């Protein structure tokens, strides 16, 4: 049996698939520990696993961590070029510096056989590299290989320069980036959906992974009585500031249409909702989506995966960050329609919604993506890769 140490950022979309894979590892008798810079709700941590936040070492950075987390809300209001800077210079790099001391202590105490670092949580890779511990990377979203923003040579050079400087500040003088594993990178989507024809050998597409059941109560009876097609809407856990504006447009578009909207958002943003809107802050999303006919979301990847796992078409309204890349993949696969959030018109929303509900080609393309997801293997495949990796490293060690 092996010991796995997951290193994760304070963003639930990145943590969630690691919890699912971790639960399966624990079920097979491995020891699993997570390290993060912010606590997560106890019910999310798989039984038998530990989630450690090195509070003592993080304490001096707390005001800065809070400021950076708050700063993420600016994402929708700044340009793509600025979000790149926000991500790398103002978020990933400082978080890497803040967590390192505590992470190194925990690694020394836990003595993992393998460190599994999330793709934006560079500390995991740097710590592993310096301690000679084998490491694997997890990537929750389809990687934007050679994407728009990074294709500009000076932008790419900026990225590499920053990563190399970060590595050097921890005594690593490698000429290339080591912050993601060059041996095994688990990607939680299918190769076909990611549209990467020839991925590097270390990149393994395992599809969505399943977590523990979410038993949040929901008014299932009301849903049973709902009229017309049912459309699930989620903006995910981030992006708090724009909810009111977003849902105002949805109300304008769908209040008088013969369909039912199920919205995962706090109902208190409006005094009154239209009768055909069922609104609840936290919902059992996986169970709910199984009963829907279509989904509207901004491109948060857990919702994207839940949607196509159920073979449903999606209306995607990308706002910032990697949403645009995900939206372009959805259009490429033909399983949905993209309407950019900043250019959202009520009439376009209405027309696009009825198009994906009535034109069967979107649903059949979504069903095809579901098949590629299932074939990718999910939890079992991810764990198989991790166990094989750990075993091969043990052999080398002997």
């Amino acid at each position, binding site marked *: 049996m092996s010991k796995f140490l997951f290193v994760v950022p304070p963003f639930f979309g990145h943590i969630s698939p690691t919890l699912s894979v971790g639960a399966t590892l624990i079920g097979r008798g491995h020891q699993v520990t997570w390290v993060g810079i912010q606590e997560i709700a106890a019910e999310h941590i798989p039984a038998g696993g530990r989630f450690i936040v090195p509070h003592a070492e993080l304490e001096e950075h707390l005001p800065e961590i809070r400021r950076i987390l708050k700063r993420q809300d600016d994402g929708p209001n700044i340009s793509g*070029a*600025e979000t790149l800077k926000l991500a790398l210079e103002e978020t990933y790099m400082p978080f890497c510096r803040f967590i390192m001391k505590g992470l190194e202590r925990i690694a020394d105490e836990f003595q993992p056989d393998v460190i599994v670092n999330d793709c934006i949580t560079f500390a995991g890779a740097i710590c592993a590299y310096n301690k000679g511990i084998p490491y694997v990377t997890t990537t929750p979203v389809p990687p934007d290989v050679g994407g728009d923003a990074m294709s*500009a*040579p*000076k*932008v790419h050079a900026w990225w590499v320069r920053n990563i190399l400087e970060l590595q050097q500040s921890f005594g690593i003088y490698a000429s290339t980036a080591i912050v993601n594993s060059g041996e095994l990178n688990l990607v939680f989507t299918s190769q076909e959906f990611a549209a990467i024809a020839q991925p590097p050998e270390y990149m393994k597409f395992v599809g969505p992974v399943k977590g523990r059941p979410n038993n949040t109560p929901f008014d299932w009876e009301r849903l049973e009585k709902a009229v017309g097609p049912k459309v699930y809407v989620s903006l995910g856990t981030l992006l708090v500031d724009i909810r009111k504006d977003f849902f105002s447009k949805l109300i304008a578009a769908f209040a008088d249409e013969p369909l039912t909207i199920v919205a995962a958002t706090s109902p208190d943003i409006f005094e009154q909702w239209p009768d055909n809107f069922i609104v609840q802050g936290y919902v059992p999303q996986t169970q709910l989506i199984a009963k829907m006919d279509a989904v509207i979301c901004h491109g948060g990847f857990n919702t994207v995966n839940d949607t196509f796992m159920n073979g449903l078409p999606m209306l995607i309204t990308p706002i910032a960050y990697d949403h645009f890349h995900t939206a372009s993949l959805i259009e490429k696969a033909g399983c949905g329609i993209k309407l950019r959030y*900043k250019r959202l*018109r009520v009439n376009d929303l209405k027309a696009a919604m009825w198009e994906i509900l009535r034109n069967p080609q979107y649903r059949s393309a979504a069903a095809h993506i579901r098949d590629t997801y299932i074939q990718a293997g999910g939890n079992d495949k991810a764990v198989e890769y991790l166990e094989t990796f750990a075993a091969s490293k043990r052999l080398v060690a002997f």
Partner: protein
Amino acid sequence: MDQLTQPTQLSEEAILEVLKQFITEVIGQEFVEDLDITPQSSFTKDLEMDSIEIVAFSEKVKAHFGKDIDFTGWLSNMDLDEIINLNLGDITKYIQSCL
């Protein structure tokens, strides 16, 4: 079809007027109404153009001012801060320098 104009006589103001028209066509009248488009307007921050819109805008610029204007090529040679700070006045000057 856009007409190929006699570009050498164009002032920055005249170019700006044409660009304003292209911006309206690309991002839509209702989204332009709330904007005060000036030479100081930031391309990414104020106009909030995404890559698809930038390509559409670039095609219009080429069709109108001449195919030698490699707007996207010019953009792709910028570093991040240049992209962030790029404003409409810079684009006007760039087009004028190509004419």
